[in-house]
């Protein structure tokens, strides 16, 4: 079974050039291969998740080189969960892209989509920091292509900002990696976890600098407050299915923070003690607040959803920054919820766009398919705002519960509860303007022409959105087993010894001369 770990990386990596080379001009064949690839990914990911569910940590040594020297892929509970989440999200996003013909509005959508999946999967599975950088770049370069898919001025301009911001982030990442290598002499995560502990207390300047730089890089990816500027315009201008897929990209940053700051710079480490509570927590609370205020202030529906994403990332980061087992459990539950809810909302934004000239929050006459779209929007908004009965409510409850006994409880409770209220107001204002007031609007002068020109969205689009919302409902109904599993994950994260032993003690080439190093 060990070789299956690399399948989520290799499969899209082979499929993408195949689609470019062999099916370049046949959108039908591209669609078939893309869907087949994603279905296969789901099976592989489910298999890996099942394998890891009993706590097994599976190691894959590339080229059979032993751990600190070679690159390793590691499948534990957390990474397989994220891989499975990505694969499932990709299926629905792909269905929507096909149903709404987005993939046909420019070239190479499916190839870039597969490359993007390859990067995301690799980032979740790798056990090496430099390899994480490489997979970040793979997913970023594919996302640059997807971001400006089907062109247009506004999209290109937003694309330039997005690319430049991320290039800067990559440069910071390299500075952090250089500093870590200079201090610890390794970039393997398990090896680092051991060596960082050995650094002399008086000589920690370099490693502290590296820890902060690394946190900065992951915070850019996760769009935590002072570094969130790239997100609203790029997510709002990106094609809808791409924005929905990007919902997992912010989670890559959250995943990297969880992974690196539980294993390498763990909360009990003297060197980086206080980093999370002093810096991450206020930033997370601020981005939660600003995100939800942005929801209320937005004048366009797409920006509104983008700010909701910032808010929900703030929520995830609040839970992460507590760094207790229960808070990580809550963060993981909320991560899954927030990915599905944000993706569904971005797709619904595109459904709303169908038949409208723009996404300004101004009442316009009713368009075909508005009834179903508004019902879906209602559900997704409930989930995103965290109202009962959907999973957002359960997630927020878990976060509040985890924060209850900490010293920052008053702040967290105040910000989470008041921002939820603001978010509810923002979403209900948007929904009532878009869907209710539409009924009272006079029908346009040339009704026959407009209705003929804009048919209702395709059934497949609704299937995709409905599928995502069904997953959200399932995430709520099975909240008990889900939280139990997330608790297992955070248990594994806070006891990294088996992970470190598996990575470092598995024999391979060059595994013997460890003492002489």
């Amino acid at each position, binding site marked *: 079974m060990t070789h299956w770990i690399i399948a989520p990386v290799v499969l899209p990596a082979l499929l993408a050039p195949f689609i470019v080379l062999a099916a370049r001009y046949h959108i039908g064949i591209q669609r078939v291969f893309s869907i087949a690839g994603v279905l296969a990914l789901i099976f592989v990911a489910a298999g890996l998740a099942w394998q890891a569910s009993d706590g097994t940590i599976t190691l894959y040594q590339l080229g059979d080189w032993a751990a600190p020297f070679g690159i390793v892929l590691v499948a534990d509970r957390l990474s397989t969960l994220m891989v499975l989440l990505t694969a499932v999200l990709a299926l629905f996003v792909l269905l929507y892209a096909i149903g709404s013909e987005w993939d046909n509005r420019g070239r190479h959508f499916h190839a870039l989509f597969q490359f993007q999946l390859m990067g995301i999967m690799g980032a979740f599975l790798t056990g090496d920091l430099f390899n994480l950088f*490489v997979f970040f770049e793979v997913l970023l370069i594919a996302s640059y292509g997807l971001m*400006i898919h089907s062109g247009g001025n506004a999209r290109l*301009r937003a*694309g*330039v900002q997005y690319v430049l911001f991320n*290039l*800067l982030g990559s440069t910071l990442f390299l500075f952090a990696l250089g500093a870590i290598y200079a201090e610890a002499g390794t970039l393997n995560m398990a090896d680092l976890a051991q060596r960082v502990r050995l650094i002399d207390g008086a000589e920690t300047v370099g490693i502290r600098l590296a820890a902060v730089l690394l946190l900065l890089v992951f915070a850019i990816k996760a769009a935590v407050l002072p570094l969130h500027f790239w997100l609203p315009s790029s997510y709002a201008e990106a094609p809808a299915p791409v924005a929905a897929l990007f919902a997992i990209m912010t989670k890559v940053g959250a995943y990297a923070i969880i992974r690196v700051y539980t294993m390498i710079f763990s909360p009990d480490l003297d060197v980086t003690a206080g980093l999370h509570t002093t810096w991450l927590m206020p930033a997370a609370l601020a981005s939660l607040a600003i995100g939800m205020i942005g929801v209320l202030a937005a004048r366009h529906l797409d920006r509104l959803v983008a700010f909701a994403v910032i808010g929900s990332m703030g929520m995830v980061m609040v839970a992460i920054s507590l760094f207790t087992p229960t808070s990580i459990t809550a963060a993981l539950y909320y991560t899954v919820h927030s990915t599905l809810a944000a993706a569904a909302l971005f797709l619904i934004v595109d459904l709303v766009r169908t038949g409208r000239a723009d996404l300004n929050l101004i009442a316009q006459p009713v368009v075909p398919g508005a009834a179903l779209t508004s019902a879906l929007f209602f559900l997704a908004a409930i989930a995103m705002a965290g109202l009962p009965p959907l999973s957002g409510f359960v997630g927020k409850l878990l976060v509040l519960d985890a924060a209850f006994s900490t010293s920052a409880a008053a702040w967290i409770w105040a910000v989470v509860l008041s921002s939820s209220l603001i978010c509810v107001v923002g979403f209900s204002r948007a929904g009532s303007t878009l869907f209710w007031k539409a009924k009272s609007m006079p029908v346009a002068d040339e009704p026959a022409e407009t209705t003929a020109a804009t048919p209702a969205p395709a059934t497949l689009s609704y299937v995709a959105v409905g599928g995502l919302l069904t997953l959200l409902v399932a995430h709520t109904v099975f909240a008990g087993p889900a939280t139990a599993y997330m608790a297992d994950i955070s248990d594994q994260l806070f006891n990294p010894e088996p992970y470190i032993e598996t990575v470092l003690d598995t024999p391979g080439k060059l595994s013997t001369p460890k003492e002489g190093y």
Partner: protein
Amino acid sequence: MELLVASAIGILTAGGIYLMLRLRTFPVILGISLLTYAVNVFLFASGRLSIGAPPILRDGIEVYADPLPQALVLTAIVISFGMTAVVVMIALGAYLGSDDDHVDDAINKPSTGTGDAT
């Protein structure tokens, strides 16, 4: 030599950041390139500086250069090269399309914000 390398990294970084704050695409791209040069030298120096030392184990040699940062720098160079090419193309497209090379969208804001409504 340490002073030379350190000041080179510092000057490249300072120049890169200054150019990036100009907020027009061409200076920003140049600034990012300078920053990537700075980071490449920084990565190179992270394996400690040594002159004329071989990177491969051989008999009778005591001082070695660390080969790993060199491999890392190669990867970083290739990636930043590709990324720069991509960003030049996208920026060129954006410039030709909107006849404006500002990276921030402050100038274009009225046309995207209220222009859509009318």
